[in-house]
């Protein structure tokens, strides 16, 4: 009798686990392979808009994915995709992509004059947090240098519309930049970041 109950419990547990995706965790490579169709080989996007995610910091990757998953960060499709992975799986992908080299050899239509002006604006408004022209991945920010320009533009559009939340520090700087330089200032910044090799 005892045995019967025990077996019954085991079967029930088995069914419950089976129903709720008792899938084992795939490897980092296997998981990352699912990203590259949109984000390019090793996370280096061929453009024109999907961002390069190679070289991304683990910290930033984790934050971005959790925000997409919860809907805090707006997106067209990433929110729907991010809901398909666990925190453990994000960790594995983060470890994979953070080890890849960010390729800045991109074919973008750079306006040299605007890029030059953008360099100055970067120094004045952004450099303090986005060090080294936004090259650094040693912090909780995304890599800006050499990123696809449409993506940078989408991101700032979301910040400015209030769809995506800025930190207090960033909000202050972005608003000052907007007041002092207007929309053109942001465009000049994209040309600067897009031009960095």
């Amino acid at each position, binding site marked *: 009798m005892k045995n019967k109950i025990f077996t019954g419990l085991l079967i029930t547990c088995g069914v419950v686990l089976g129903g709720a995706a008792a899938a*084992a965790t795939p490897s980092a490579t296997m998981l990352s392979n699912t990203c590259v169709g949109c984000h390019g080989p090793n996370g280096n996007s061929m453009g024109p808009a999907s961002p390069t995610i190679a070289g991304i910091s683990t910290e930033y990757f984790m934050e971005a994915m959790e925000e997409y998953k919860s809907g805090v960060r707006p997106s067209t499709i990433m929110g729907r995709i991010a809901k398909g992975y666990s925190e453990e799986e994000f960790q594995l992908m983060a470890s994979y992509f953070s080890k890849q080299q960010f390729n800045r050899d991109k074919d973008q239509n750079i306006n040299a004059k605007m890029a030059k002006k953008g360099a100055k604006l970067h120094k004045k408004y952004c450099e303090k947090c986005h060090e080294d022209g936004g090259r650094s991945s040693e912090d909780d920010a995304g890599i800006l240098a050499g990123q696809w320009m449409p993506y940078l533009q989408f991101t700032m559009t979301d910040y400015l519309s209030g769809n995506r939340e800025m930190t207090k520090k960033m909000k202050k700087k972005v608003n000052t930049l907007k007041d002092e330089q207007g929309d053109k200032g942001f465009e000049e910044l994209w040309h600067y970041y897009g031009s960095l090799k």
Partner: protein
Amino acid sequence: MTKFNRRDFLKVTGGVAALGSLGYTPFVIAGASKKVVIVGGGIGGATAARYIKMADASVDVTVIEPNKKYHTCFLSNEVLGGERSLESIRFGYQGLHKEGIKVVHEMVNNIDPQARVVKTSAGNSYKYDRCIVSPGIALRWDTIEGYDAKVAETIPHAWKAGPQTATLRKQIMAMRDGGTVIISAPPNPFRCPPGPYERAAQIAHYLKQHKPKSKILVLDPKDKFSKFGLFTAGWKKHYGYGTDNSMIEWISGAEGGKVDGLDAKNKTVRALVQDFKGDVVNIIPAQKAGKIAHIAGLADKSGWCPVDLKTFESKIHANIHVIGDAAIQSPLPKSGYAANSEAKVCASSVVALLKGDEVPQPSYVNTCYSILAPNDGISVAMVYNYADGKINKVEGSGGLTPGYDKTTMEMRQREVLYAHSWFKNITKDVFG
């Protein structure tokens, strides 16, 4: 013992050096190299070849593909809409060659699963340890009386991109203003479920600019289709769908939209309750797995190939794997991204099986964009895992672009740019 000359040595070590940073075995003995033969150099086949070579450079990989150039089916509707050139969806095999993959342009006419040999109509035989069959689809001519491969030269299906796409584009361009384009949609399951409806939108986009008095008539054996709400909303927004002046009319199965005959000479199709005459007729027939799958006995009664969903090994013949549209891979759809995803999972299991290692745990994904007008894109996505012998949709993930009332044009314009990014990235992933 296989001869091991200096050139081979350079090839092997060169290949390994390029991959060295990824941590693969630094040296291999050529005599021990395992052979993988891949039948079909489309999205599934070319991806599988590259991912096997990346995972284990010592594997001898041969792709057998009759055509020297491949045209992607995805985004071929933009060619019909006049927004994209045929050249932009054309890819060659130089990338695969450079990575040490052999690509031979021959037609496979048999596979011997016992002897493990692939035979071609050129009279050549290719021995394999593991074979991957990625033949795409064959068209079920038998489902539409009066339609066959010969007739399709003038009444195109354009469901395999390339010359067929060019023919349909030319016919639409030559059509008079005020003419009717008939699209006969296929029954489930078929390649690219949203494809016929994106096609209607893309042709409408062209006609709206150049031949605004023209109409598109979509005849369908089904009562619903992929991204139904989004497509009909998009048709309404851009092409007046649902009004008296609509450029697109869709006739469902319940309304008699099922086509079962064609009078090619009079460009008239026979649907369930009446005949329809068009100026341009595009018939997308019912489908089954590509021809070689049937010759090799890999398909079952359904016309598609049953496979183990972890390895994509055929349930009928051991050591042969079937991927892409030809496989029964539900709930994965018959889409380009799914074929690419299946190919990676299959490649990793083939490499493991060749070594006698444990087959890795799979992860699959699909994303599928449709472009309704140059600034209006929609998508469907899904993440899948593997458990209990099945592929499962990960609960809560994926789904459609939220409805038209919940998205802005700005967001849907981004989807177009992301669709084009997806195209550039996936074709790089497939062809190198």
